[in-house]
């Protein structure tokens, strides 16, 4: 009993329960067929959402109104930049990775400059900058579809025992991010700023440096996502990031991170990412029409968050 109620108090438990239910429903429908394959597919596609979700989580945790809407554009720019630089050559793999990460640094820095120097609210700042970033991607890449270097393509699609290698790597990344959040000065600072920015400043936290790092981190993770996503799907495209706009926010919040800031949760992001993929899969499997599928997706998201309940009222 005690263990159950303790578990129920974990904010991430609901996303895992949700994914279990959805998976069971799917497997029941197919008569037990393909259960493992579905999970494996969820792992390989959920990975990308997790990468951007981790960055988005830190941003959202720095307080209400903080969100990074430039993630899709960053994915597109970083992916096409890297593919062009590498030109399909294995030898250029590291150069490509560095270029892609630098692209993230540039976007993150630009976002923060808008927020800090021009005092533009983050939602609008990152939205505006995403337009500029997308334009850069268009002007530079013109949607060029260059094949990724074979080594990158093989790595991003490799599997051991039917588990995508990339998922294992990103699981490691998630553990690292969890440590970063809970056990480092940076992570503590993010949590403090999210609760009360002024109090954080007065408690000696370098508020602005931390916010800068946070927007940087988010953009760098987005560009990393663009890099591996382009490798995984055989090249970059201008609209390859589009679906990660809402998805990155959804997995963070369904995963138990507080949108009011100051409370974050890493395991929940994995649960929520898998849940979101399995949800679509389930509805596809049921053969639901587009309208019904959309409605069910929405209602299930609302149901999960309602059951999980919101933030407990404070004194």
């Amino acid at each position, binding site marked *: 009993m005690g263990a159950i109620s303790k578990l129920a108090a974990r904010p991430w438990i609901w996303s895992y329960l949700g994914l279990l239910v959805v998976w069971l429903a799917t497997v029941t429908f197919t008569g037990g067929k393909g259960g493992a394959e579905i999970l494996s597919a969820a792992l390989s596609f959920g990975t990308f959402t997790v990468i951007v979700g981790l960055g988005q989580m830190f941003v959202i945790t720095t307080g209400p109104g903080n969100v990074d*809407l430039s993630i899709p554009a960053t994915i597109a720019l970083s992916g096409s930049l890297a593919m062009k630089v590498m030109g399909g050559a294995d030898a250029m793999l590291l150069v490509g990775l560095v270029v892609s990460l630098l692209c993230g640094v540039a976007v993150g820095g630009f976002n923060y400059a808008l927020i800090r120097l021009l*005092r533009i609210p983050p939602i609008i700042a990152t939205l505006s900058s995403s337009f500029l970033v997308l334009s850069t991607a*268009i002007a530079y890449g013109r949607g060029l579809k260059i094949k990724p270097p074979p080594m990158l393509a093989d790595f991003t699609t490799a599997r051991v025992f039917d588990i995508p290698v990339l998922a294992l790597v990103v699981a490691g990344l998630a553990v690292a991010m969890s440590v970063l959040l809970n056990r480092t000065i940076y992570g503590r600072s993010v949590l403090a700023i999210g609760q009360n920015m002024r109090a954080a400043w007065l408690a000696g936290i370098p508020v602005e440096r931390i916010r800068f790092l946070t927007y940087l981190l988010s953009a760098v993770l987005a560009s990393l996502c663009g890099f591996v996503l382009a490798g995984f799907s055989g090249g970059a495209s201008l609209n390859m990031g589009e679906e990660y706009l809402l998805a990155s926010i959804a997995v963070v919040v369904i995963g138990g991170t507080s949108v009011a800031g100051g409370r974050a949760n890493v395991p929940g992001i994995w649960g929520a990412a898998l849940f979101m993929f399995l949800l679509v899969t389930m509805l596809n499997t049921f053969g639901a029409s587009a309208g019904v599928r959309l409605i069910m*997706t929405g209602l299930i998201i*609302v149901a999960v968050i309602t059951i999980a*309940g919101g933030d407990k009222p404070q004194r």
Partner: protein
Amino acid sequence: MLAQVLSPRALRAALPAASLVVLLAAIFYIQPRAMSYFGLNLMLQYAVPIALATIAQMFVIAINDLDLSIGPFVGLTASIGATLLASSPVLGVLALIGCVAAYAALGALIHWRNLPSIVVTLGMSFVWLGVAVIILPTPGGTAPGWIKAVMGVKLPYVPFPIVAAAIIALVVHVVLMRSAYGAVLRGAGGNARAIGRAGWSLLKIRMVMYAAAGTFGVLSGLSLIGLTSAADAHIADRYTLYSIAGVILGGGEFVGGRVSPIGAVLGALTLTLTGSFLIFLKISPDWQIGAQGAILIIVLALRALIKRREG
């Protein structure tokens, strides 16, 4: 007296209007033809539904929530308007009332379970879109004639969109900013606990605000099909971001119940005009999207200047 006029608060309040004027001046300079009844009418027509959606968003932001579903919701009401409302008016009106009620219920749910509005409305955005796709599987339908007539009305001297925007701004200003209950509603955004301690029902306040948002969402959808004469489930997807940007451009803030209906309407007009401005500028297609971002940044940078002067 002068000190009051030049106070930071007054400057901040004047900023949305100032940026609109600057933008208009720039447009008139580049394209003098825009400076006419016909020109203003054309440029500002689509500002009316955006202004209504922005007001809807403003009601939600006023109580520290954020509505990520207003765009698809406007799309849904537009779809209902172009199908049910035209074919069987009674059913259509009932459906639209149902939409408003659904919004109020959403507010109640968010309050009851203390849920983050962002997630709930994110989920609902799929629901609205799904319902719209079912009602209107392919773009089409026809708007009822009276809506088209209202939206196409030709007033003497002043173009209809300007009059409509002024009416929207004033009505909401009076209701939210000047009325006695309006003060309570906004107070809930500033310090909900204090409002609760004064004996007001926070549940009711949230339901009222969401219902108001729903109502303006419906109006936005209807005015939109009055202009387009047909609907499309995706017709207003982007209104979500527009409406948020409009509220902020208009001087509103995400938390603390600081919003301004007049500012929000001005923000919506500004957003609409940035599009026109860009087209008049004739930039290379590659950079047109980016230029939209750049203009948003420039307009908002003005805010920063004033804020800096505030110290």
